[in-house]
């Protein structure tokens, strides 16, 4: 309601109340009067009626003043306050409510202002942090950009949807699309650009297949999961593309959800057109010189041997053989001359191949067949140790193509796969039963363009097989009434064995860390360095017993590095040690280390120098460090290896964080901090767990004002003393 209208209404109402109250008093008084008094008073009042009415109306003026004052104090002041609050909230955090109105409302305004003060400073703080973080990111990005621009390879970084997030100039240059057929230089636009789709450059299916290969390798915890493929660029260049995953920073990443953990991929593109050409030349030369000359040599040798074997041969026959020898000799010479000049012009594209585990290829083919062709598949005997040299995408396409034709034309309802080694080849069998094929069918299947699984490939199965220097044939196994295509593919040795990473809840990959640029020299002696910036070696030992001075010895050391607030689970130290004394059954039970495992292990004097090197320039961290340090110090004299590093103890730090709690055992802390215990009671397992705990302690310590190494050591000393006093 409008202010003035409301004011008028309130005023009118209060006036009415006053007038009615006056009238009521007059009426009450009148009821009390006697007849004579009323007769006396009546005319007097009637005479004074105009002035009484005027007085009543004049009453409005003081009433208006009173109502206005009340409005100001109790209506306008709160309304202003609301307005001020809106301004502070929406427009200007520095605006403050001016005190007005009643005392209560003034106090309310003061309270509101106090809130605003706090909010404003918080906002400033957040702004500052955001700015800081942005600068940090910007700096990293510039560094990355500088690095990428120096690379000789073309690099493209994409998210999982295939949108380009980052690329370098070389990638832009290489992946141009010619505007006209001739592809004249300068008249080309690049297909690479931020936010563009990488599928405009490379076939979507090839990329997806490579991603699937990556996922498989991630699941197998390959050390460097990389998939590669060969593709033609829009400008007709042949490129080899290596794909590496960009992994998420989610800390719960495990082998099972590797798929979710990949947030994008990096493509490193290498122009191999020239390399292929020269490689082809060599291959073709070899082929011409071997295969091409065999036929001529065979004719010559047969003719010569025939003449020699039949000396009684008539002249006419002899002349014919001599003519053949002469002709084939001339043909051989001509062949040699030609190969020297001609082979360069007749190039057939040969594909570089990658190493792949045979069982992975079959798994990929099965997935494709089951999802696209809709034929269930099973495995027969599959030799897991077989590695093949393949272009996995085209070969997988070829297999799916065969199955589709079997399904479409012969109604085959189930396919089985077998894989076994045979000499230098692997036999990959695509097996079915109940539909023998004719030679013509198998011939035409190999020479028809493949169109299996919904995508057209310009290649034929025959070309795919040739690309692999492989062979394919159809066979019937009579006793079992089964038919199969056997694909014989050259075997290879794996470029690296699948590598099993230490079983830890991995954080982001640690192979790079731009924050290391901020490291102002590794001098952990300095007590005023911030805890979060130091490098640590978190370690644990397993021993023959609990008495270092009573002759117990170290049997195992495990350690992991923590750098820049990250646990580097690829940078670990793990070593069993021959204690040169008996291992008690009790100790074996706890540590899981049998005496037999320690035979032929190095002795402590060999291990400690290596461990010292591993710990160089770091702060040592251990749980109940005093115990482990005692063992190390006792060996100083014998080994000459001195550990003079600063040491932090997670047990003491835990006591500093939670002084009121009594349990500071490794497991109890792990549970409190939400760290999963993995591989407990191995030195490395415990070290990694300690490292995870230590990382989570750093922010908790900071809350208590413990931010530097010196402060942490001081706090440890205090809790140590406190614990002793108890």
């Amino acid at each position, binding site marked *: 309601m409008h202010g003035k209208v409301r004011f008028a209404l309130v005023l009118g109402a209060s006036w009415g109340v006053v007038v009615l109250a006056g009238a009521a008093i007059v009426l009450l008084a009148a009821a009390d009067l006697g007849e004579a008094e009323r007769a006396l008073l009546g005319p007097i009042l009637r005479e004074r009626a105009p002035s009484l009415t005027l007085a009543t109306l004049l009453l409005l003026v003081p009433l208006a003043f009173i109502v206005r004052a009340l409005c100001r104090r109790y209506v306008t002041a709160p309304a202003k306050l609301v307005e001020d609050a809106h301004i502070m909230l929406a427009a200007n955090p520095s605006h403050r409510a001016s005190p007005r109105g009643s005392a209560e409302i003034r106090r309310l305004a003061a309270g509101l202002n106090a809130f605003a003060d706090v909010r404003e400073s918080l906002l400033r703080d957040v702004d500052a942090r955001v700015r800081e973080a942005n600068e940090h990111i910007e700096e990293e990005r510039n560094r990355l950009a500088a690095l990428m621009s120096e690379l000789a390879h073309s690099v493209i970084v994409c998210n999982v949807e295939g949108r380009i997030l980052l690329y370098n100039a070389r990638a832009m240059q290489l992946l141009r699309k010619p505007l006209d057929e001739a592809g004249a230089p300068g008249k080309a636009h690049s297909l690479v650009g931020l936010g563009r789709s990488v599928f405009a450059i490379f076939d979507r299916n090839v990329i997806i297949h490579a991603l699937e290969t990556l996922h498989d390798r991630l699941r197998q915890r390959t050390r460097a999961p990389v998939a590669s493929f060969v593709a033609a660029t829009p400008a007709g260049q042949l490129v080899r593309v290596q794909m590496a995953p960009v992994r998420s920073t989610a800390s719960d990443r495990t082998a099972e959800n590797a798929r979710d953990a990949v947030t994008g991929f990096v493509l490193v593109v290498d122009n191999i057109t020239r390399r292929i050409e020269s490689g082809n030349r060599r291959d073709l030369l070899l082929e011409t010189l071997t295969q091409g000359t*065999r036929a001529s040599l065979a004719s010559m*040798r047969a003719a010569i041997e025939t003449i020699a074997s039949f000396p009684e041969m008539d002249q006419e026959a002899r002349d014919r053989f001599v003519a053949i020898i002469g002709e084939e000799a001339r043909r051989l010479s001509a062949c040699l001359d030609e190969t020297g000049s001609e082979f360069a012009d007749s190039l057939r594209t040969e594909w570089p191949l990658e190493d792949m585990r045979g069982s992975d290829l079959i798994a990929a083919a099965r997935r494709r067949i089951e999802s696209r062709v809709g034929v269930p598949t099973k495995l027969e005997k599959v030799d897991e140790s077989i590695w093949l040299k393949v272009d996995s995408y085209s070969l997988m396409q070829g297999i799916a193509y065969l199955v589709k034709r079997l399904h479409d034309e012969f109604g085959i309802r189930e396919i089985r796969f077998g894989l076994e080694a045979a000499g230098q*080849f692997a036999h990959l069998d695509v097996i079915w039963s109940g539909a023998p094929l004719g*030679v013509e069918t198998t011939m035409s299947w190999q020479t028809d363009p493949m169109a299996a699984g919904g995508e057209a490939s310009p290649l034929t199965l025959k070309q795919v097989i040739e690309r692999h220097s492989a062979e394919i044939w159809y066979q019937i196994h009579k006793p079992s009434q089964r038919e199969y295509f056997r694909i014989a593919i050259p075997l290879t040795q794996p470029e690296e064995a699948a590598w099993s990473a230490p079983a830890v809840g991995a954080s982001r990959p640690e192979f790079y860390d731009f924050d290391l640029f901020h490291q102002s020299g590794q001098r952990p002696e300095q007590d005023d360095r911030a805890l979060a910036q130091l490098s640590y070696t978190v370690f644990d030992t397993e021993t023959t017993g609990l008495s270092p001075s009573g002759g117990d010895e170290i049997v195992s050391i495990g350690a992991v590095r923590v750098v820049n607030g990250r646990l580097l689970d690829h940078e670990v130290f793990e070593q069993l040690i021959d204690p040169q004394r008996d291992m008690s059954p009790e100790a074996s039970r706890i540590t899981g280390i049998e005496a037999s495992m320690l035979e032929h292990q190095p002795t402590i004097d060999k291990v400690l120098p290596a461990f010292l090197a591993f710990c160089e320039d770091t702060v040592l961290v251990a749980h109940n460090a005093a115990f482990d340090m005692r063992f190390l110090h006792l060996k100083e004299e014998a080994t000459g290896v001195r550990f003079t590093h600063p040491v932090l103890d997670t047990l003491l730090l835990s006591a500093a964080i939670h002084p009121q709690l009594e349990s500071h055992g490794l497991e109890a802390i792990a549970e409190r901090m939400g760290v999963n215990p993995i591989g407990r009671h191995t030195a490395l397992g415990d070290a990694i767990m300690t490292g995870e705990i230590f990382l989570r302690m750093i922010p908790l310590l900071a809350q208590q004002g413990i931010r530097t190494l010196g402060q942490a050591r001081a706090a440890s000393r205090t809790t140590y003393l406190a614990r002793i006093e108890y």
Partner: protein
Amino acid sequence: MAKRILIADDEPNIVVSLEFLMKKMGHVVRVASNGEEALDAVGEFNPDLILLDIMMPRMSGFDLCQTVRENPAWKGIKIVMLSAKGREIEVNKGMAVGADAYVTKPFSTRELVAKVRELLGE
């Protein structure tokens, strides 16, 4: 006893020697210079043994061999593959599709003759 030999090869210069050798062994010889011709000849000539080159026009030796093996009427025909392809894998494939012997070019005529004798049970 005279046997019937089919020589299927598109290289005339090797055919001359093969033909001469087989005739000297006392066999009846027929020559085909490509795969299809050879397949026709198998039906008409009904050979006891085929000397079969792999790389022929129209139809390869592998395919011809498999076609012959598909027909039960031709069960008794012996097949010797001759090829300039000498890799282990081609030999395996040749034997897998039903060849009785695989001889890599260039070959020794004496060994070829011995192999033919052996297959014909002489």
